[in-house]
């Protein structure tokens, strides 16, 4: 099956012109500063998948989406959506887009806003009316449908933005940071909505900072860093390569056994007669389990812990020797 989004060597270089005045000398020069926001990005997105574009601030996620949406023009490279080059109008009619921190016409009410966008999609009045009411309900802003958007909170605007992105019943939905500005409940609703869209056979391409949410819903992810593709693949391919550590919780074991395994564990916590040991290696965990059973202790839990997307992400984007900085992402 042909990919629905094909990106080939997509690059974007921003040129900023400015006047440079040398101090102490009468010398004025016109200079330009070139910033590579995106460098040779190549990736495919398959039909019906939830694809997460992840990366720290300034990585090039929004630039990629802006190019795909025709807001920016690529300096180099090509991209196709549903087999057509960017800007193809019949293709645009089949996609939905939610920008980051959306801001809409504050003089329009929620309902007027959706009708206006429906008109831009060329939708018939009856269909527009039907979809508007459906989406106001689905996104939970039906109660504010006749309130001007200037009276909407950030979260409500995000929901209005989601509603307009789904107005045309799109085949592909582009969501730029769809969960920003939402409370935990709102985030969960967006997550559920994205999963619902996939169940309806739609392709979802979204960028996010919220890695825990991305891990829960993405079929595949791409990590971009400093404008370059760092890694791409299915989550189980990227993360299942190794089990990061084993957590063993036991109770009723002798103090000698505790002492013996303390030295092998990377962490251990005691709470009453319960002891939690964290081992990097499987063998030490197995040895503790055997010892516990031999001593007639109780094995409360044995949990191999896989690498999380967040840990993988930090590994990918952390410059060597800058651990602290990476943790702040």
């Amino acid at each position, binding site marked *: 099956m042909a990919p629905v989004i094909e990106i080939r060597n997509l690059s974007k270089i921003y040129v900023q012109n400015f006047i440079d005045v040398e101090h102490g000398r009468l010398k004025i020069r016109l200079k330009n500063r070139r910033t590579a926001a995106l460098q040779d990005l190549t990736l495919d997105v398959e039909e019906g998948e939830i694809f997460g574009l992840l990366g720290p601030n300034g990585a090039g996620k929004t630039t990629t989406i802006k190019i795909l949406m025709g*807001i920016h023009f690529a300096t180099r490279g090509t991209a196709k959506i549903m087999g057509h080059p960017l800007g193809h109008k019949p293709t645009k009619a089949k996609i939905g887009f939610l920008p980051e921190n959306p801001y809409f016409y504050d003089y329009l009410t929620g309902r007027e806003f959706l009708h206006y966008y429906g008109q*831009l999609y060329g939708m018939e009045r009856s269909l527009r009316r039907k979809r508007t009411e459906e989406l106001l309900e689905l996104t939970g802003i039906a109660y504010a449908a006749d309130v001007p958007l200037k009276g909407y909170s950030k979260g409500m605007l995000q929901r209005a*933005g989601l509603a307009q992105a789904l107005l045309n019943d799109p085949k592909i939905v582009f969501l730029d940071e769809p969960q920003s500005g939402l409370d935990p409940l709102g985030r969960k609703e967006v997550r559920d909505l994205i999963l619902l869209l996939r169940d309806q056979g739609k392709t979802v391409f979204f960028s996010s900072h919220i890695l825990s949410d991305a891990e829960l819903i993405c079929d595949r992810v791409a990590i971009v860093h400093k404008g370059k593709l760092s890694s791409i693949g299915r989550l189980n391919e990227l993360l299942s390569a190794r089990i990061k550590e084993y957590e063993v919780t036991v109770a009723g074991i002798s103090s000698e056994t505790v002492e013996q395994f303390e030295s092998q564990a990377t962490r251990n916590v005691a709470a009453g007669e319960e002891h939690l040991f964290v081992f990097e290696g499987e063998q030490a965990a197995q040895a503790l389990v055997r010892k516990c059973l031999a001593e007639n202790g109780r094995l409360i839990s044995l949990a191999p812990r896989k690498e999380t997307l967040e840990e993988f992400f930090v590994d990918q984007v952390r410059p060597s020797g800058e651990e602290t900085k990476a943790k702040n992402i």
Partner: protein
Amino acid sequence: MYSIFVIALNTFKEAIRNRILYVILLFAILIIISGGIMGDLSVSAPEDLIRSIGLFGINFFSIMIAVFIGIGLVYNEIDKKTIYTIVSKPIDRTHFILGKYFGLLLTIYANVIIMTLFFLMAIHYYSVVDQQTMNDYFMHLASQKGSYTQADIYMYYVKALLGAIPKGAGSFFGHDPTEATKNIMTVISMNCFELAIIVAFAILFSSFSTPILSAFMTIMTFLVGRGNEDIIRYVWKLQDKIQASGGADMTLHFKAALAQVIALIAPNLSIFYKVSDAIYEDKAPIYGSEILYGVIYPAAVLTLACLIFSRRNFK
């Protein structure tokens, strides 16, 4: 084409929900109807002053609306990033610019119609409440009833006001044209072509610069446009001087060339300002070449705006 209509309608909605519009309109109506008060100050022809002030008011305030609403229309869409969701829809960027243009033009023309209605009503009102007409009326009343009271005078004003409303509206739609109103519609129609050019410039500047800079550039274009014929006269004067000096003075050559380029690029707006026709002509002529100019020039400016806008990366 449908998307142009949709964007134009939304732009119209945006403009009529903007409070600045109502402030400008209120001032405009006050100035237009105040012509009669100032007319009292005129020694010779107060009705000429009423018409001059009214036509000036309509022209000036419609340009104010074009500048102060037009300059932010495209810029705000980029600044507030509403343009992101617009360009991702199946429409051309060109349609967006044209929609904004026609939406603003629609807003201004609607305001011109309102101002014209008030103006025509004011003309009818002042034609009834002028000193001579009132004297004749009350003399007649006194001869019939023996005397008249202050209440009769108030009643006269009320009747004049109520009578001016249907008469003004009638004049607007061409019914029963009077000497005072017959040329006004022609002159205001010519102003509408000037507005079409100013709005095109406001949209052009707004498509690549900030509102303050756009306002400055639009007002400058308007001023240069109105003075275009003076610039051409200045060029002729310089050419006479060059001939007289034997063509040796290069500064004169440079000045003449610069003025010629400005006169060529800037719109000639003075051709649309025909207030004197409304006052002194028996029948104001229809200006075919000016109308053609008023259609082609904004089309050229809008083409440039579309070219700039269709290549832009939106921040």
